[in-house]
């Protein structure tokens, strides 16, 4: 029995795809796989899921109050689901289906059904090191699958993969930097997944003058325009806390000045454009005046 994790692009989503326990799969067609969406007290977790055509979605009410799962296009309606109850629906056509809880209409979710899907990368990649992507196609599609990568200049071919009997495929790519990949087969294109390549180093030099500390930041290889974020380790914030961000200049440098109230640990992260997802981090230095 396979256990896999579906690619979920929602803000708060973790959808576990399982081959299905005997109880969970009772009465279901064996074809396709099963995605699980937990119904929480005030939301679907996760609110958006990508599945392959022919997969089944199981919603389980993990909260203490009654919910429901109703399609906006009226294609399904679970009725009232008390605590612990489950509802299942198989999706046999590619496309997007949005749904909501009729008892709490602010609770909304979305199922995106694809003929080909790449699994979300579970780990970061080493720069210029082989990295295996996995995915699935809908029943009846035989491949081969073309893998396309985009590291900033548009999608180009990055590999191919043969489709196995169970619909799964594996492709090896070699990202030199953080790259978005998608799979293309039989006229269908998967959503892109991002492979983060740990290919950068961040160096900082701290200079203190009075209460101000200036950090000279440099990133290799050159990453002009990318964002660096200064984090301070603050007791009030129970950990590392972003306090400043800057964009790297044409020489891949940035300068950040801070005046913390006391002497605290500091580090600089190179991040994705979201300013939060870490690509590389500097050593820890200290900023601010002692005492």
């Amino acid at each position, binding site marked *: 029995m396979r256990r896999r994790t579906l690619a979920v692009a929602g803000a*708060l989503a973790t959808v576990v795809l399982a081959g299905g326990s005997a109880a969970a799969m009772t009465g279901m067609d064996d074809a396709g796989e099963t995605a699980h969406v937990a119904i929480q007290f005030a939301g*679907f977790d996760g609110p958006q899921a990508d599945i392959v055509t022919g997969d089944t979605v199981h919603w389980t009410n993990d909260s203490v109050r009654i919910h429901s799962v109703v399609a906006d296009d009226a294609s399904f309606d679970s009725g009232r689901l008390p605590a612990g109850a489950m509802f299942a629906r198989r999706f046999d056509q590619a496309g997007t289906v949005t749904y909501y809880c009729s008892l709490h209409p*602010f609770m909304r979710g979305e199922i995106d059904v694809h003929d080909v899907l790449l699994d979300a990368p579970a780990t970061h990649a080493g720069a210029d090191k082989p990295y295996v992507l996995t995915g699935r196609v809908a029943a009846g599609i035989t491949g081969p699958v073309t893998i396309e990568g985009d590291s900033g200049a548009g999608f180009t071919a990055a590999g191919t993969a043969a489709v196995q009997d169970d619909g799964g495929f594996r492709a090896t790519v070699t990202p030199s930097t953080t790259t978005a990949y998608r799979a293309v087969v039989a006229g269908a294109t998967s959503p892109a997944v991002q492979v983060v390549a740990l290919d950068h180093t961040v160096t900082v030099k701290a200079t203190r003058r009075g209460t101000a500390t200036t950090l000279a930041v440099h990133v290799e290889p050159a990453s002009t325009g990318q964002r660096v974020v200064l984090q301070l380790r603050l007791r009030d914030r*129970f950990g590392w*806390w972003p306090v400043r961000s800057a964009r790297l200049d044409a020489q891949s440098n940035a300068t950040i000045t801070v005046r913390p109230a006391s002497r605290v640990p500091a580090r600089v992260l190179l991040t994705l454009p979201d300013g*939060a997802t870490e690509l590389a981090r500097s050593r820890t230095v200290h900023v601010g005046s002692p005492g």
Partner: protein
Amino acid sequence: MRFRVAIAAVIAGAVAAATAPAASAQVRDTWVAAVPVTWNLMPNGHDALTGMTYDTSQTVFPTVVYRRYSGNWRRPLPNAPAGSSNQDLIPGPLIRARVGDQLRIHFKNMDVVSHSMHFHGVHYRPSSDGAYLPGFSGPDADVQPGKTWTYLLTAGTDSRGVWPYHDHSPNMDASIAGGMYGMLSILGRHEAAPDREFEVVFHEHGAFQTIDERAFVGNTPVFFALPGDLVQWDVMAMGSEHHTFHVHGHRWITPDGTPRDTVTVGAAESFRIRWRERDPGTWLYHCHIEQHMMAGMIGIYRVGQRKA
């Protein structure tokens, strides 16, 4: 057990408060834009109370916020005074006024779908309602991308207190869910302004319960005060849940004379609480619906010591 009602205070305006010098009514201009941003509801990446860690794929999302600008939207300004909220973009600008003031809220939509601003607690004509109703409402309720609208409001004698504002356009469902809301804070004509004003907006967000769109201690606002400060808590709920506002180590007096340390607030309800601070320490404030607290609706309030 020691019981000491430390503080003379108030809910929703029944302040037995010191009075401020008389001020003449003003026309107050506020420049606001709807701006797409990327928001992280958990910048420290974890729930410090349980040790649970979260990946940015679970906590970072694109959204649209109300952002304060200088005149004619020339440059962005902080949404709130230092110490009053999470010092970030949610909630939207804290709009302050006094009873009798005229407010001109100049709104520009920098997003790619329509938005609006709808204000509670103040007086206005239908053209400043900002609420979409097909066949009836005007451009105030459906401000298109790149367009502007000026909402004309009056703080009446019945406007004292704190009030929500939020998107009420055809896209309000998604935008309120993403944090497109803020607060009006209206003082009486002669009422003393607080030394510290804290904004607490309870709002569910998927599997998380947030304060000012942040979840778990350290991520939610860290409020500061000193003994002797007149502190004011502006509390409201957005979304579709009710909540209970509770502060540790402090009590306040309701208009009927009852000491309280917890108050219920329903969706789009709002109130303010005031006290004269005198209890140094690090205190928790949170929603006392325990599922909400454990899902992130909790923060800390630090009262320092004045130097001798």
